[in-house]
């Protein structure tokens, strides 16, 4: 498995993208909240999140989706993400290790497009976020 690809001819059906461990630290989420938004207690304060019924602070959904985009770009820096669809199945908890994995599910050579299934799982290997992406690569 190549760590990076540059052209569609380098992509094979079924190959797995290099796994990516996103920075879920509370410092990073607070920084996200400061500059981007989603700085409320449920995202930036474990105790406040527990009072809302969560096991701890949770990663904003828009940030989880950003993790997926970053994972694709790390594997394919020349890729243009055309579509990315994300389903939030369960909270991604702040300060908990998570892993993002991806697999190529379709290649359309004529369109120079590749489809990828992406999943965020926690340490218990439970799926928290699922995504599908369509990317375009140089010939």
């Amino acid at each position, binding site marked *: 498995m190549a760590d990076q690809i540059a052209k569609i001819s380098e992509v094979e059906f079924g190959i797995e993208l290099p796994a*990516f461990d*996103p*920075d879920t630290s509370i410092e*990073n*989420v607070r*920084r*996200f909240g*400061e*500059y*981007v*938004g989603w700085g409320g207690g449920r995202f930036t304060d474990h105790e406040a999140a527990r009072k809302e019924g969560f096991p701890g602070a949770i990663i904003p*959904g*828009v*940030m989880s*989706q*950003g*993790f*997926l*985009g*970053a*994972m694709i*770009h*790390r594997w394919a*820096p020349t890729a*243009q*993400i*055309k*579509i*990315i*669809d*994300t*389903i*939030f199945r369960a909270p991604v908890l702040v300060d908990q290790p998570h892993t993002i994995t991806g697999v190529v599910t379709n290649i359309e050579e004529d369109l120079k497009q590749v489809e990828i299934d992406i999943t965020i799982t926690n340490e218990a290997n439970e799926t928290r976020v699922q995504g599908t992406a369509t990317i375009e690569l140089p010939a």
Partner: protein
Amino acid sequence: MQGLFLDDDIQVMRDQFLNQEFDEVTLEIDGKRFAEYAKACGELDQKFTDPNHEDFQAPPTFVATLVGRRNLPEDFPRLNGVGMDAGKAVEWLAPIRDNMTLTGKSHLHDIYTKTGRSGRMVFLVTRMELYSEDGTHVANADTRTVIRERPSG
């Protein structure tokens, strides 16, 4: 639309609200904001993180952070349940750059249901279409809200 058969109340909502624009906002794009978004999400490419890069632009997923004044039409019926964010989808059409002024136009793009062990769930897909100042359609940002209906009676 997810299924072929729709409950009558859902069909009524679809007929009344789908594809009717209910919100329009002006959005000033701040490169500092999308660069910090990129760094926090783990992007390494300097075209997303360095304002001095010649091709500096927002990561495609950044548009999911742009919000309108409201997520549903003003006269949309109140559903019997609690709404939760079920997902986001983004369609990239053209680069979004620092200091651009975008217009975001929102409409309900889909309404459908799924039925699980705990009852019916109603899914509402709100789409914000984003246009640059010259009218170029630069992106679509969908928000999928799920409402798990409370049992009636």
